């Protein structure tokens, strides 16, 4: 059945699952119970955003959660700050890590 569906719609782009996975992780880690994944933009700053009120302590929690979830090691605070820029920069960072799952 799925093979038939795929064959019938060959040109539809396959959604990248990583940004959605990251948004779900952000919501769960930071207990943003009133926020839905689609409300987190892909390309707006995560930390310091007045929309979500995330600060450096939230960033620390997020870094630990990301390291645990994806099996990566963020080396220093500057690398952490760059990676946590936006959902897109975080996704790009994880794709650049050889051990990211």
């Amino acid at each position, binding site marked *: 059945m799925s093979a038939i569906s795929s064959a019938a719609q060959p040109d539809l782009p396959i959604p990248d699952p990583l940004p959605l996975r990251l948004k779900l992780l952000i919501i769960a880690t930071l207990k943003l119970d009133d926020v839905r994944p689609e409300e987190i933009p892909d390309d707006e700053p995560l930390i310091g955003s007045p929309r979500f009120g995330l*600060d*450096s*302590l939230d960033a*620390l929690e997020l*870094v*630990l959660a990301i390291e645990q979830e994806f099996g990566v090691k*963020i*080396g*220093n*605070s*500057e*690398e*952490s700050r760059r990676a946590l820029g936006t959902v897109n920069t975080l996704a790009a960072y994880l794709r650049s890590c050889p051990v990211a799952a």
Partner: protein
Amino acid sequence: MNAPADQLAVGLMACGCLTPFGDAGATTTALLAGRRALEFSPVLGRGGGDLVPLALTGPMDETLPPRWLPALRQLGAGIPPAAWGAARSPVIVASSNFGVGSLYAFTRDHDTRHLAHGTPFASVGLLRGEFGWGEHVHIFSHACVTAHLGLAHAARLLHAGLADRVLVFAFDFVSPFVAGGFHSLKILNGALPAPYARRESGSIGLGDGAAFAVLTRDSAPFRLAAHALHNEMFHPTGNQPDGAGFAACAAAIAATAGGRRVWVKGHGTGTLEAGRLEAEGLARQFPSAPLVSWKGSLGHTLGSCGLVELAVALAALRGGRIPGTVGGAAPSFADNVALEPFGGTDFDGAILTSNAFGGAHAAMLLTHD
């Protein structure tokens, strides 16, 4: 509006410290030679983990009694005898972490004996018993400006006529709990600190440190002439991004220095953002004063650093040579960062500063004959 500095001059009747190099004299000699006490060690001690730069007086693991007690006994042997802890001779104990590593050890080993010195009150109680101090013991803890607060409080006690002499005693020994915390923050990592260096990423080292000072209102060859304290009240962890907090404290202490020729011993942990703001703020107030940090060798001894580094400064002044910024590298955040030792006889004062998590700033003016 920023508070002016306290100008309550007090005499330094005695001062000493303990670092992995030994006492203040040995520490100064090592710094002048450019030696680092920092070595790469597992962040969790026997628990393993990443290798990070730590300057330790012995294995980091928690012991019974706590590993800092024998070291403090050694330091305490140099304290001039007095009825310490009596009403007119109070003791101020300053630490950022006291025996917090023992709480970690308790959670790991479930040995309740660790709890006997796991809190500030309990660890100071252990010291009181060890040194025979009376009941007039004040406990101070305000992150990395703690020792400065203790020294400033001592000056206030003396000038208020509430004490004849004050012993300020500071200690912080690295534990897996503390090292692990800084490692989680990503600022204690696999690189050596390079204070004030303009580079791609920052890092700190942590170190064991303890020190004491005896202060009176009597005249002495070395004097603490002024203290400036400032808290940004801006953010629970971060600094004002424009450096206003660093600038306010530097301006307050500069106002007390008058026309003195000073050098500056800064905080300089090796982090990038705070290091830049600090160096720029100090350079604006003291553009021709050499700026040094010794944390690239000794590591950051947290709440005790202000007093440990005061003891080193005194030993350096006695010897006539001031250690440079060990571990630093050009280019620096400010032109006046001194990477190499320099002569101390060209100066008639020194500014010693510390900064803390959450935007707390402290500075003091050290003067001498």
